[in-house]
């Protein structure tokens, strides 16, 4: 593992009125590492993401960036540190082309007018460096497939040269082939030395790309696994908080019927 974490959170708590959304949550991200953040609905994944993104700052707890303590009070702080977030609902404008979307709010200007040529060149370079396959950077994103759109959204987050990228359910709405495209892209982000936080419901995706899995349950850390050292059952147990649950009973039943313990694939 890389020597020092680029981002580490410890003792993070967050309360919304009567709801304790996070209690003493911990998370560490190293450069060139994909960390999957998993948990049941309401486990605090989104809250933790929003704490890191500066959307909903933590009530207390410590955030360290490259070893020194920092405060992330608003989205701008996270951006300045080098944390980019790609939200689940794609934040793309269907009527604008790929270049327009990549540079939205951050356009290159030359003599007061948009410098389309500089932007188009940078867009092409960026997308080809990520091996994102799209017909043309000049088609409206409405004409792209779900996987291509997600890739454009992820590519846009890289324009600010972040060191950590958070992906909130990047494959939730995608088909099998498109999911594979996005997973490939996630591996390329890791190869570039970025720290990637992947929030996902889909344990198959997590198994495919994650180096480490951090499980949250009811706002607390409920386990941490290195990929390859944990079985899917162990992860599911950590998510549900019981060795005996609906999920494991079903797994045992199916395994018994099929005569195998492999149920996840």
């Amino acid at each position, binding site marked *: 593992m890389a020597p020092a974490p680029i981002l580490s959170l410890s003792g993070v708590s967050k309360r919304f009125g009567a709801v304790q959304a996070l209690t003493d949550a911990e998370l560490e991200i190293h450069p060139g590492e994909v960390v999957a953040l998993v948990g049941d609905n309401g486990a605090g994944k989104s809250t933790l993401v929003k704490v890191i993104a500066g959307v909903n700052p933590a009530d207390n707890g410590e955030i360290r960036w490259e070893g020194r303590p920092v405060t992330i009070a608003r989205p701008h702080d996270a951006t300045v540190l080098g944390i980019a977030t790609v939200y689940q609902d794609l934040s793309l404008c269907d009527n604008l082309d790929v270049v*327009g979307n990549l540079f939205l709010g951050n356009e290159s200007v030359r003599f007061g007018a948009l410098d389309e040529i500089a932007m188009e060149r940078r867009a092409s370079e960026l997308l080809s460096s990520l091996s994102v396959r799209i017909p043309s950077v000049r088609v409206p994103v409405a004409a792209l497939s779900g996987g291509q759109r997600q890739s454009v959204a992820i590519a846009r987050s890289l324009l600010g040269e972040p060191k950590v990228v958070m992906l909130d359910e990047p494959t939730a709405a995608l088909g099998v082939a498109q999911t594979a495209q996005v997973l490939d892209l996630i591996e390329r982000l890791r190869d570039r030395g970025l720290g990637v936080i992947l929030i996902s419901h889909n344990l198959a995706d997590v198994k495919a790309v994650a180096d480490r899995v951090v499980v949250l349950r009811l706002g607390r850390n409920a386990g941490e696994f290195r990929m390859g050292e944990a079985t899917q059952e162990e992860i599911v147990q950590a998510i549900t908080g019981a060795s005996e649950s609906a999920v494991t009973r079903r797994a045992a039943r199916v395994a018994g019927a099929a005569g195998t313990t492999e149920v996840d694939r």
Partner: protein
Amino acid sequence: MSTVNSDLIGGPMSASTTGEPAGPDTTGRPSGLRAVGRRLRTGELGSWPVVIGLAVIWLVFQSLNESFLTPQNLSNLALQIAATGAISVGIVLVLLLGEIDLSVGSVSGLAAAMLAVFAVRNGVPDPAGIVVVVLICGVIGVVHGLIITKVGVPSFVVTLAGLIGWQGLQLYVLGPQGTINFPYEGFVARLTHTNLTLAAGWALGVVAVVCYLAAILLDQRRRRAAGLPLRGTRQVVLRVGTLAAGAAATVAVLNAWQGVPLALAILVALVVGFDLVLRKTRYGRSIFAIGGNVEASRRAGLNVDRIRISVFGLASAMAAVGGILAASRVYSAGQQSGGNDVLLLAIAAAVIGGTSLFGGRGSTYSALLGMLVIGSITSGMLLLQLGSAERFMITGAVLLAAVILDSLSRRGRRASGRE
């Protein structure tokens, strides 16, 4: 949008039609015919339906009455569309946001009334009066925008209140006398009663074509230097040739009567100017972005409220410009100024011209093209000695056809997963 010289009569969507695949992984360029078919199915039609419709309308009227396509009639047509066309440019901006402004008719009437009171009753110099009136109306639009964005009232309702309220203010400003005449030889009257000299008309056309050609060549050179795909030579020749032929035909026809009307030059300048702002500036890009996806725009750091407010300000300012041109045309401002069907025609023109009611798609050229369609119907009906009854019914049918086309193309985009 793709380059400094995107399609003259297309919005940002036309970028996709400029053809050259530029992506890192090109899947090949669709052939011309197949591209047209794809655009038909998927609803990226741009300005083509209205151009074809206009050609059909002209052919029909010409076959019914030979004096339709004469220089005199076409010159009149050009004059007739200037005022409402200017108002329609503002409507296009508002429609691009996915909003509506129903107050532009009343604001245009109010502008005419205020200008008459300032210039005729109180002796303010005409140019100064025009500037002040346009600014005041801009502030009116900003007030609409503030209520819409900060209070959260739908633009439909706020501007409906404006429609009624500003008309009331117009009547109040005019006072009991009702109508104020502008002097026949005054600055205001001359705005729509001046024609460029023959030479000036030709010069204008040549300058336009040369500027367009220069912009394309410059762009090609920069693209080559940047290693980006170039437009095909055939495409460049086609584009410049189309503009040159169109400009030459327009100037020749108008010069065959009394020369290019100043009012038409003003309208075209407004249309081109706003089109450049929309496609070439960050401000214009933000307007399209907000019309496409407000939440995405907000997340991208755009100041959505400020842009919306400014667009309503611009719409009202353009309404004022249109109102002043309309007053100039009839030498007076009265209680009827900005009334009747001005508002409806301005909105109809934008939609007929191809600007979507659903936001994010369109161009200021649709104001010009849509007004040409509406003006042609009006003018043709007059030549055929048909009254308002037939004119309204046919204009209504054309508007309906345009809205249906807009909705169908939106459905097409959805069906092909584009929205």
